[in-house]
């Protein structure tokens, strides 16, 4: 193209201002429609459908595919979608063809006693089955491992919770006992709490014994042997403990009261005489 022609083209608007490149013309692709049609008409064989067994049909329409719309929406790069579209097309063809075949009395199901050579050998099918089984087993194993891991985590959590609860309870109990020992609170509430929390629901209002708590013997033994705390410094010969005559039972000391058994069980109490009396006896014996 020489310059006046270019100017003409620019003026008329065929060429836009800017850098223009001369494109080489693409070779025309042959599409001889008439030739194709003629060839097809010559080539076509007038065979019955039963010889050809061909079905030209779109996909099976189900609610899922209807949302996804027509085949144009199938993205060839999306493998799963593509294969599903082929599958659905095959399904549609089968659904259409099987009734026709049944009408023409062509069998489609192989009877169980019909043994013939298959396209893939038995060995091949065994290999396939092995592979599938191993895959399934691997999946199951991984699932089991995951579950075990989860359970272990859960078990550990529960265990720590229980331990913490126990420690808390122990701490509370000790504190309550110490307070009672020190005299800050003269209520044996902490003992009752233990009972009510465990058996309260069962006994309910019927138990009036809870007020007393454990019996005297139990309380004595608890005091002597149980509930922790310092025992070493608990018995001191101080003014208070000397003046404390609460554990003196006159009847026991003078052997005067009724015997322990009460009825007929008279126990002969060996009352040891005092020091002066013993000395008198000794000197008298001499």
């Amino acid at each position, binding site marked *: 193209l020489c310059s006046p022609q270019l100017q003409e083209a620019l003026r008329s608007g065929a060429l836009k201002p800017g850098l223009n490149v001369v494109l080489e013309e693409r070779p025309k692709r*042959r599409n001889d429609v008439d030739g194709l049609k003629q060839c097809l008409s010559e080539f076509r064989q007038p065979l019955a459908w039963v010889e050809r067994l061909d079905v030209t049909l779109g996909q099976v329409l189900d609610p899922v595919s209807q949302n996804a719309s027509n085949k144009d929406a199938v993205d060839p790069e999306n493998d799963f979608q593509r294969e599903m579209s082929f599958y659905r097309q095959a399904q549609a063809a089968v659904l259409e063809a099987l009734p026709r075949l049944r009408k023409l009395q062509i069998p489609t199901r192989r009877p169980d006693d019909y043994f013939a050579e298959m396209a*893939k050998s038995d060995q091949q099918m065994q290999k396939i089955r092995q592979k599938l089984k191993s895959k399934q087993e691997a999946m199951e194993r991984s699932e089991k491992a995951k579950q075990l891991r989860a359970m272990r985590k859960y078990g550990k959590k529960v265990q720590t919770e229980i331990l913490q609860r126990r420690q808390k309870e122990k701490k509370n109990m000790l504190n309550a006992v110490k307070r009672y020992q020190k005299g800050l609170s003269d209520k044996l509430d902490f003992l009752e709490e233990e009972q009510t929390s465990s058996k309260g629901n069962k006994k309910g209002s019927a138990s009036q014994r809870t007020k007393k708590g454990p019996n005297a013997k139990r309380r004595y033994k608890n005091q002597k042997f149980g509930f922790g705390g310092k025992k070493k410094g608990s018995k001191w010969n101080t003014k208070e403990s000397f003046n404390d005559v609460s554990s003196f039972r006159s009847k026991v000391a003078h052997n005067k009261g009724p015997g322990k058994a009460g009825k007929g069980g008279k126990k002969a109490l060996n009352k040891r005489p005092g020091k002066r009396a013993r000395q008198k006896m000794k000197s008298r014996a001499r």
Partner: protein
Amino acid sequence: GKWKNKERVLIFSSRGINFRTRHLMQDLRTLMPHSKADTKMDRKDQLFVINEVCEMKNCNKCIFFEAKKKQDLYMWLSNIPEGPSAKFLVQNVHTLAELKMTGNCLRGSRPLLSFDPAFDKEPHYALLKELFIQIFSTPQYHPKSQPFVDHVFTFTITDERIWFRNYQIIEEDASLVEIGPRFVLNLIKIFQGSFGGPTLYENPHYQSPNMHRRLVRLSVAAKFREKQQVKEAQKIKKTGSKVLIKEDPTEVVFETPSEEKPVEIQLVKPESKPIVKDKKKPRKIQRKKQKKLFRTE
């Protein structure tokens, strides 16, 4: 019944095919009982020799595999005496032996052929459909065939290519399992005659594998060249000659010199500024110096 539809297909290949193509050929021979095998053809013979080979074997259809450069596989489908022929580029070949294809069918059973509706829309696809039907459908009452119909071949047109799949029909409610093989055909040309004759159709979307590889290489090279060009341009900019501006005498007209300040000499140290904690600056975290542990023997 009597076997009337006398279709025979010759399936063979040229030299230089790889194992996958060989297995594909064998799979097709297993699936089609009306097929015949032949020895490999020498590359130096012209294509129309195939017509004579088929005549000798008394076949009226042909599937010919041609391998080039040990990489590209081409497939010819042809109707032998006078009919049309088509050349395809075959891609994505998966054979029967692949363990992911779990289905199985009787050897020699008749297939159901399923076509995409797009095959009826264009005349070249219609011609191809007829060719596929005549080649792939097993004639009824063929002596090597089984009377059952238990698998289906699907031909679908996606992405300007023809996809082939083979499914086994398990239940009457159309539950299918893939048997294989599977491949993708990319149409190149359709000829009026068998392995020759005027071209009826040329696929505009087809790109030869050589061209494809060349374009890939060119794009990589182009990227590299672009980078180099950018680098050179930057270099020129850096070392480029600075533009000299001529002195303008009228520039200094409005300049007034500033007053001269007396020179002050500081004799006393200035008081230090109060240290203000800059809360915006991040605190310097003093890390404890780790004691170096020495091994004592």
